[in-house]
Each structure stands twice: as structure tokens, then as C-alpha cells.
């Protein structure tokens, strides 16, 4: 399956589909309801990042046909009017680049309500590609015509440490591997502030059944980091880190 990793998203050349990981819109805003005041810059930052990605796709001579959001578009489980407003802003921006019907929203474990009046799907299958959030193993994504599963949910990142153990830093990463005969690509969270959980720490997926891919299988996945210049850095298998 041919795809490119652009920023924290992935673009599938053959299908012309751009997949975006967990957005968690309303994170900052939701904190307000909990008594923490933060500046709300999230929608603008998301739009800025998306603009760069779409520009990049065009520059490389590809045609963007569809955009798939891989679930957990909103952060809080309950309904928030503000999140709807924020997402609408993002949605309006995107509909300038693709038709509205070609923006596909997948339901994550945080998405209990439909956003911006658009029906959300549990999964979306297009020409041997299956997109899903990753918390529920829908039988459809394991059917024969599917060659690759693209998911979010896990917010993978990698903790890097120098030899003397002096410096350590966390970076968002993609995980690529195989599960039940399908290729699998796991996207990092799209939200800047959520770094995610380090795959080489014990906290990663410490809760049993948290995702459709068991911890044991994740160990065989390979880690890819996209740096600020857009270069892809391969760090090998999780278990060898």
C-alpha cells in the first residue's frame, strides 16, 4: 500500500485519502469547565497544520479526494456547544478543498454525539483500505478485501535517551506492522499538546483490551518519526528499542 507520512498525518496515494489522527477538540475549553483557565488557540493551530499538509500534497502533484478523521474528534464525553463551534470552523476550512460529502468522520470512544450534524461512522472502507478508531474490532475491517487497517486511538510516541542517560525527550510517532494478516498503520494524535504515551514505557497500553491490537503484537511494530523538516526517521521495532 502506497502512502506518505506528512506532518502527523498520512496520505494514501492511490485512493487520494488523507487520514487525520485524534483531534481532541475542546481539550483546552473543557479544562475551563474543570476550573483551569487556558488560552484557546487549538482550532487555529489545527487549521494551520491542515493548511500546510494540504499544500504539501498539492506540491507533490497528488490529488486530494477525501479526508478521514480517525475518531476522538472531540475530547470530552459530554456534549459541549463550544466544541461544535470549533469543529465547524475546521470543517468549513476543509470544505474549501474537498466536497463536504468526502469528509468522513469516524466515531471514537470520546465521540458520543454527532458533530456538525454529520453522521459519524464506526469504520470506513475504500479500495482495500479500512479506517477505524481502533477501540472496537468491527468484523468488517477484517474481511478479505481489506489489505490495510488505518487507526488512531493509541497516541503513540517514543522516548529517546542518550547513552549517558543525561537527556531524554518524547516524540510523536507512527507505528506500522501486521495484525491478523492485515497491514496496520497507527497514527499519532493530531493535537499538538497531547504528546501521547511512550511505546517504550510501561504505561503504553497498560489497560487490557484498550485497543484492538494487543500489547504483544505492538512489540513487533516498527516506529517512524517525522521530524520538523518532514523527513521520516525509522527507529526499528518497538521491542528492540
Amino acid at each position: 500500500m502506497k502512502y506518505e507520512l506528512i506532518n502527523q498525518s498520512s496520505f494514501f496515494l492511490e485512493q487520494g485519502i488523507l487520514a487525520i489522527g485524534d483531534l481532541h477538540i475542546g481539550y483546552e475549553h473543557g479544562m475551563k469547565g474543570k476550573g483551569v483557565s487556558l488560552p484557546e488557540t487549538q482550532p487555529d493551530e489545527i487549521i494551520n497544520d491542515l493548511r500546510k499538509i494540504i499544500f504539501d500534497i498539492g506540491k507533490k502533484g497528488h490529488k486530494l479526494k477525501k479526508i478521514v478523521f480517525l475518531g476522538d474528534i472531540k475530547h470530552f464525553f459530554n456534549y459541549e456547544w463550544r466544541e461544535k463551534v470549533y469543529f465547524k470552523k475546521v470543517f468549513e476550512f476543509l470544505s474549501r478543498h474537498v466536497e463536504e460529502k468526502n469528509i468522513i468522520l469516524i466515531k471514537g470512544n470520546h465521540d458520543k454525539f454527532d458533530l456538525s450534524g454529520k453522521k459519524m461512522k464506526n469504520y470506513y472502507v475504500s479500495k482495500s483500505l479500512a479506517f477505524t478508531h481502533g477501540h472496537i474490532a468491527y468484523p468488517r475491517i477484517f474481511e478479505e478485501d481489506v489489505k490495510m487497517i488505518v487507526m488512531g486511538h493509541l497516541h503513540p510516541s517514543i522516548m529517546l535517551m542518550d547513552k549517558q542517560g543525561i537527556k531524554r525527550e518524547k516524540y510523536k510517532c507512527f507505528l506500522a506492522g501486521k495484525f491478523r494478516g492485515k497491514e496496520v498503520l497507527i497514527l499519532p494524535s493530531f493535537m499538538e499538546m497531547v504528546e501521547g504515551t511512550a511505546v517504550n514505557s510501561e504505561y503504553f497500553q497498560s489497560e487490557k483490551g484498550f485497543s484492538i491490537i494487543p500489547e504483544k503484537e505492538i512489540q513487533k511494530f516498527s516506529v517512524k518519526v517525522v521530524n520538523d523538516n518532514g523527513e521520516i526517521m525509522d527507529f526499528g521495532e518497538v521491542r528492540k528499542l
Partner: protein
Amino acid sequence: MTKVIESKKHTKSEIKKILHPLVSEWFFSKFEDFSLTQQYGVFNIHNRKNILISAPTGGTKTLTAFLSILNYLVILAEKKELENKIYAVYTSPLKALSNDIHKNLIEPLEEINELAKKKGIVLQKIRVGLRTGDTTLSERAKMARLIPHIFITTPESLAIILTSKKFVENLKSVEFCVVDEIHAMDNKRGTYLSLSLERLNEVSSTFPAKIGLSATVEPMEEVARYLVGETEDREVCFARVPLDKKIDVQVLKPVNDLIDDKNISASMYNLLANLIQKHKTTLIFTNTRSATERVVNYLKEKFPTEYGDDNIAAHHSSLSREHRFDIEERLREGKLKVVVCSTSLELGIDIGYIDLVLMMGSPKSSSRALQRIGRAGHKLHDTAKGRFIVLDRDDLVECSVIQKEMIERKINRIGFPRNALDVLSQQIYGMAIYKIWDIDELFSVIKKSYCFSELSRKDFLDVISYLSGEYELEKNYVYGKIWYDSETKQIGKKGKMARVLYLTNIGTIPDESFITVKLSSGEPIGAIAEGFMEKMKRKDVFVLGGRKYVYRYTRGMNVYVNSAEGLSPTIPSWFSEMLPLSFDSGLEINKFRKEMKDKFTSHKKEKTIKSFIMNYLYLDEDVAESIYDYFCEQHNFLEIPDEDTMILEKCTMEGKNYLIFHSMYGRRVNDALSRAFGFLMGRAGMRDVEVGINDNGFYLAGESVLEENFHKALKYLVNEKGLKEVLESAIEKTDVLARRFRHCATRSLMILRSYKGRSKTVGKQQMKSHFLLHAVKKLSNQFPILREARREVLEDLMDLENAKKVLKWIAIGKVKLKIKRTKIPSPFSASLIIQGYSDLIKIEDRQNFLKRMHHEHLRIIGERKK
């Protein structure tokens, strides 16, 4: 500036003349004569003079204040002139006030009433009201009907009642305001109180006379100014009551050889048990909560017939209120043989008869040590008996020098945080809840507080901007706490919830939630803050309580570890519970080191040096010998660093470059110096620098730690006046700034601990410190609360002023630096290296580091393939 004068002593007949006959008769039925404290205080207080009185524990301070006030009220009560209003406010930082108040106020009042009855004198009833965080709603309602004449409260509750228009009516003619335990207010709680006092002054029709009560404290003039505030028209006097409580102190070591003896811990418990058995009631200070539990458990297990739940108890601030009260009560009743506490029993509540105080580990300053042993023999003429139990050689030297300071009555100085913008935010919010203010009026009230007398108008306006919801923060949410109308220049509260929000979120003591660290056997060994856990990775080695452990896994609120002696720490050590050594005591140690160095370099005989140690530090031969050996080793191995010479040791261990600074100035100064040097050297070498800090010095390690980089850094720090700027850059990416920012954000009500009726633990706030800091920096790098966090790190956590002083000494050659190469760390630096590192100064850019690590991985993968 406020005028400060030293108070005179008054004669007994002068005092007697001002007392109402009933009060006088009552007094002399209880006491033979006026105490020295009363001779300094009673007359002045009677004449509404502002006064700061410092005297040791047992010096009848509280009664001195209340005697004048009661006298006045009895005079009014007899004339039937007592009105339904508050005449005196008493505030103390202690939670468990009621017992002290009972003894010093309620009992005298009852006895005077008895006496009046006997004599057929009819007195109006004099009412006393107590209001703390624990006061129930019905008690408060009762207080609103029958106004107490003497109002007893805490700094927090005082701030709350000052927001209530109704209650403030009762405060308008307060004549006396007593501030107890002032020596314990050298923190943000004190800053907070100073503003509450100004608020009280502001609502009062006449200036309430301030009576400050303190344990022995220095500098008296500054503390006196703190008490009354800074204005042209105020005057305050102070009295250093020349009372000398007799003290009997001694430094004890559990074993002869503090280095090689394997049974040091067992011997220490034997020594403890022995001392406890020889005394009636013993109080033990351990400095940390975890040590408190450890000592209690060990004594119970090792001596099951001597110690059980009925006669031994642990006391620390994380215990429930009921539990603590119960222990204090049993202590007063003489039911407990021994109580072990961290620091919690330092302050002045009456805890009954104690004949021995044991200090395990250094109390870190002479005033703290005096305060602690003052808990033994609470009455003035009793001798206070205290013993230092030392466990290593640095501790031995430190405790011995502190003992010398105690005996020679050298008191270390305290200071109050100034211009704290988080405290200011909370107070302005409270003031706006009380009424609508004119902005200039508000500013001028604030400027009268000692802690804000140098507040700039810009800082003030920034806080107003923050509170009124500017900085592009949504105006109508939690954020807009006040409104500010730039036309009318007026300020007021916003929203109906304001009072409730203020009431439930008030305070300055930060929350930290702790996770218990346990061995796989389940044995608890200590606690670390939750935030510290964010960074841990499997197989990480860290230092806790001087020992190394390897991290295994977390279950709920427990972290499981294995012992990891022999491995190198991979993450910074956890230190938050440690008390810093006072700068003054550090200088005393330096002075002692110089004396010792002179003797060794001039080849004095062993016997001469030992007897010098015994005389100089008031030690017995046994202990003096250990100190002699320690210095002798250092002298033979390298050189003794002292007040004139700071030795820098350069060595390489496990491929890492180390530079060890023998900077004997206490942790707060070392924290500043180490980061300044570390940051500049790191920048010169473009690699991160590891920093290890303790009270005796600090070390830097990493690829940037080269002599040439050190000289560059030194030149910069000595020639420029930029220590503050360097430090601000150095702390920008550290955990400590993130953590302190979180505390400041809570104090300034950016994070509400309790909101919409739900109160949250730190963990449940779901907000990692770094996340919060990141978000706010996007807003403005000069956001006032962020500036405050930087100030707090530099001035309260670190000691910027004294660090500047040390750099100055280096610049003018008063302190000479000497770099020496060693193969292994010298004896004086051994414990510094063993305890591991405290923080990392981040220099290398994240993206560069990513590239470097990727190359490294490719190389390893490449090798694997071969």
C-alpha cells in the same frame, strides 16, 4: 519609611498602675511577679503602641498580649461600656489553636469572672469567638448575632471575613491586632497575611495597634516593619526580651565509625531506645514524613514489649486532623512515651511535659534547632534538653556547628517573599468582592504592605489585566474574576459565584499528591510527587532518601521498586521534602573549615587540633575525633576548602566529565550557582548538563563540562551583572519551573482546586505541569503569573541575593577558586556524588537531539544486521 525603635522595659509599679484592681488581684494570685516579657509588652500594648516581641518558648508571650487586652475589656465591662463589636483580633498560623487559647485566654477570663462574683462586682460578659477553617456554619451564625469581643482566627479565615460587608461592620473599631508565631510566616502565607492586615487597617476607623509575637528571630527591624507595614506615618517598637532559656545540647553518633560500620542503622535504634527509656517523654524530629513512619515502625518491631500503639505515635501534616488532635491530647495527658514527627510539632502549641528532644539529621538552622529543643521543658525556667543524632560525617559537622550557634545564640536571619503576584491576585479578588474600588485607592492600600511596598505599577496593572480576563482569555468564563472600567478607573467583582469561588479556593499552601514507594516485599520506603512519575521508565534508577532503587511498575497509588545499589541513577533524585541549610550556618561551617585548614597546614599536633575542636564546637572527645579524622582525610587527599578558597574538583567517572564545586553555602545558593554555571557551560558546549546539588556544594556533569567552558562561564558571571537573566534562561525548560508555575497558577486561581462544588486532587485536575506551562507561554512569555513562578524559583526556592553575594566575593578575590584534578571524588564530595543528580539543564534543541539519536539507532541497527 516606617520608624522602628527599640522598646524600653517598664517597671513593675508602672504596669501595676494601669491594671484594673480585679485583673491585678487575679494576676498576683496566679503569678509571683511580672515576667520580663510582660515588663516589655504590657505597658506598650496598653498605650496602643505597635510592638514586636521576641522571646523563647515559655516566655509568656501570649499571656502578655492578652493581659493588656483583657485588662482593657474588664475596665469597659465594669463600666457597662462594652459594645457589641470586636475589640481585638488574634491570628495564628496554627490549625490547633483552641488549647493555647483556652489556657491563655478562656481560663484567665473565667477566673477573673469568678473573682468579680466573689466580690460582688458585676461585669458584662466578655465574649471570645474562634473562627478557623473548621468552624461550623451554626457556630458562624451564632457569631453573627453575638459578636465576640476577642476574635481568634487564622490568616485564611481573616481574609475570608474581610470580604463580607456585614462582618466587616463589626471590625471597624478593632483596637488591637495580635499576630502570633510571626517567625513562621517567612513564606507566601506571610505575604498573604501582610495584605490581609492592610485590608483590616483599611476598614478600621483607627489604626489597630499591632502586637507581633515571635520566637527568637532576626532581623528584628525588618520583621517589625513586616508587622505594621511601610508608610511615613507609622511607628513600631520591638523588644528582644533578654531571656535566656537554659539549654543542654549534645551531638551523639550511634557508632564509632560513621563510614564502615555496617550496623549503623541498628545501632542508631538502640541509641534511640536507650535515650527514650531514660526519660519520661521524648519528642523526635526526623525532617521527613517517610522517616517518621520508618522510625515508629522500627521501634515497634524491634522493641515490641516497650513500644506499642498505646505509647508511641507518628505525627505529621498529612495525617487527618482527628488523628493529630488525638496524639496531641495524649501527649498533654502524659500518656505517650515517645512521639515522632517530621517538622509538624515545631510550632508553639502547648504539648505538655517533654523532657527530651531528639533531632535525627540536621535541623538546618540554629533558629529551627532552638525552636525544636524549646519544646522540651516548656516552662521558662526548665532546662531544654536536646540531642542531635548524626548519621554521616557531613551531618556530624553541620550539627556540631549548629550546636555552636545555638550555644552562642547566633540566630539565622529570615525574610518574607516580596511582590508575589499570585498572592496579590488572590487578595485583589478578595478586595473586589468586598467592594468597588477606585484603582488608585486599591494600589495605595496594597503598597502599604511591607511585602508589596516596592510593587511597581506595571506589575499591579498586569495583575488587574489578568484578573479582568484580558490576555485574550475568554472574558466571561472562570477567567473574568473582576471587571475594570478604564473610563471610571473602577474595579469590582464579576459574577454571582465570586464569593463562593474565593471561599473554597483560598490559601497559599500548594497541593502535591504523593505516591508511596514500596519494595516488592510491600515495605514502604518513601514517597514521591505524582509529577515526578510522569517521566519514569521501566528500569530507571533513582535516588530516594540516600538509597538507589530501580523502578519496576506502578499499581494505583503505589510505585514498586527494587534496591539498586551499585547502579548509576538515570533520572534526577527526588528532593522536595528536604529542608535547606541556612546561608548563615553555611558561613559558620566555612569559618570552622578555615580554622581547621590553618591548623593542618601549619602542622599542628593531632592533640592540639582535637582539643581545639572540642573547645570550639563544644563537643566531647569521641565526636571531636570523628571530625578530626574527616578533615584529616580531606587534607591528605586534596585540600580543605574554606571561607577563602572554593575548591573545584575535576574528574572523570564512567566516561562522564565531572566538575565538583565545594561551595559551602547551603542548597538555596548552590541551586542558583549550579544552574548559572551549568547553563553557560552547556551553551558553550551545546550539550545538556546534569546538575547535582546539596547543602555542601554542587557538581556539573556532561560533555559540555570542560575547563575552558568553565572559564568562559566564570568570566561572564563575574564581569556582568546578569546572574538573574542567566538564571531565568537556565530554568526556563526545567521541571522545577513547571511545578512552581502550577502552584502559582493555583494560588492566583487560574486553576481552581474546588469548582462547582467539586473539589479535586492534583491528579484529577488532569493537567500536567508542562502542558499548562506550554499553554501559558503561547499566551505571553511575560504573563504575570509566569513571571511570579520565575521569581518564586529564583528568590524563594533559590537564594538569588546571597548567590550574587558569593559571586561578588569571587569577583573581588575574597573567595579564590582553585581547580584540582582528582581520580575519584575527595572525601568531602563523596556524599554529593552518591546522592545523584537533581536536574538537567536543557541546551540541545529537540530536533537536533532527534537527529543525533536517529543516527545512533541506525548505527546500532546496522551493527545488528552484520
